[in-house]
């Protein structure tokens, strides 16, 4: 559904401070954008503004489908995955329960969830309580919902920080597959993404 994302003349204010102003961005299907910039430049705020959680001071965020402009609220409800610093997992539930909930909530089914867990090497961990998983395993569990319930626009905040080299490379391949299938990725990063991406600097 979402085939392009546009950000025009965006200004975001947090408290007394204006993080950025007159920020423009255009991304089309198949494209990955990495947002870089020093701490506090507004990378997370920009992602949350695109997801609709932060109301920008000025400017517009637009989504377009194959047939033209989409109503932003509609486009976000079925078309956006937001993965922030936190993994949104309940520590005293099993990995399986949490994965199935997240996948079903975002529109996927059980078979897709289990396949995604297999792909990310989580199959043997599903019976464990989330509190017994390492930070990297929890992050892979959170990433599994991106694979299992197809949504075109991925908004990722430091997605790879807790992952080891092998899993970074694996997720790079999975992102490449998502992009090849017409997806979009906007990621706030400090290290480069393991996939071809266009860099955008915030706070420069």
């Amino acid at each position: 559904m979402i085939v392009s994302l546009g950000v025009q003349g965006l200004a975001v204010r947090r408290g007394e401070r204006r993080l950025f102003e007159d920020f423009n961005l255009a991304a089309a299907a198949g494209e990955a954008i990495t947002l870089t910039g020093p701490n506090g430049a507004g990378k997370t705020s920009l992602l949350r503004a695109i997801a609709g959680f932060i109301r920008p001071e000025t400017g517009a965020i637009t989504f377009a489908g194959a047939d033209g402009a989409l109503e932003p609220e509609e486009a976000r409800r079925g078309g956006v995955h937001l993965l922030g610093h936190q993994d949104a997992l309940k520590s005293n539930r099993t990995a399986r329960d949490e994965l199935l909930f997240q996948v079903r909530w975002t529109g996927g089914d059980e078979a897709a969830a289990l396949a995604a867990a297999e792909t990310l090497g989580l199959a043997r961990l599903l019976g464990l309580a989330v509190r017994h998983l390492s930070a990297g395993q929890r992050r892979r569990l959170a990433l599994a919902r991106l694979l299992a319930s197809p949504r075109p626009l991925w908004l990722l905040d430091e997605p790879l920080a807790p992952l080891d080299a092998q899993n970074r490379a694996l997720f790079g391949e999975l992102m490449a597959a998502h992009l090849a299938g017409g997806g979009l990725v906007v990621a706030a990063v400090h290290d480069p993404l393991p996939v071809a991406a266009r860099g955008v600097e915030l706070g420069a």
Partner: protein
Amino acid sequence: MSALWLIFRRELALAWSGGGGPLLAIGFYAAVATLVPLSTDPSTHNLAAVATGVAWVALALASLLSLERMFERDFEDGALDLLMLGPPSGEAVAAAKCLAHWTAAGAPLALAAPLAAIALGAPPALAPLIFITAAIGGVAFAFVGGTGAALALGSRRGGLIIAVIVLPLLSPPVILGGGALTAFAAGLSWQTGLLLLSAYTLGAAALCPFFMAAACRNALS
């Protein structure tokens, strides 16, 4: 609809796990109801006069217990982002959470309320009406309480703030529910109190989801 059923079931599972929500609420309820005869003249005549009132006050207090976890837990671990992003609207998510909260805490408390009142000396003939008023009032407690919980999101010591916001708003159901019981015991018309209680509950269920969704969006922005 299936997505709301999903969140309802998840909230129930969360209420039962880690701290046994319903049992905790009933234990607290029993403790409050037991403290009253200990703190006053425990003669049967005196207690019977306040039995239904005590049952209702204890109900209002016990329903505050797990409110803090209703939104705060999802806010802290980032799951509230996921829930508010949909596909269902934030209002529907909030309503499903309140209904799950009522099922986990309000319904068991409504079952315990007649027992507590009769133990304190209320006539057994009151039991069905106590259960019905407690069950209906409990829905209002859940929706009004959820609004307090959403407003207190992100504040430290949220539990105290919730109690201060919510308790005054719980007074109408306490007055109406307790009033219906008193009227019934005195042989007067009790239907009016029950109808007004139901009206308050319906009003809360209709309006509070909008307040809760707005408060959650505000906390996430």
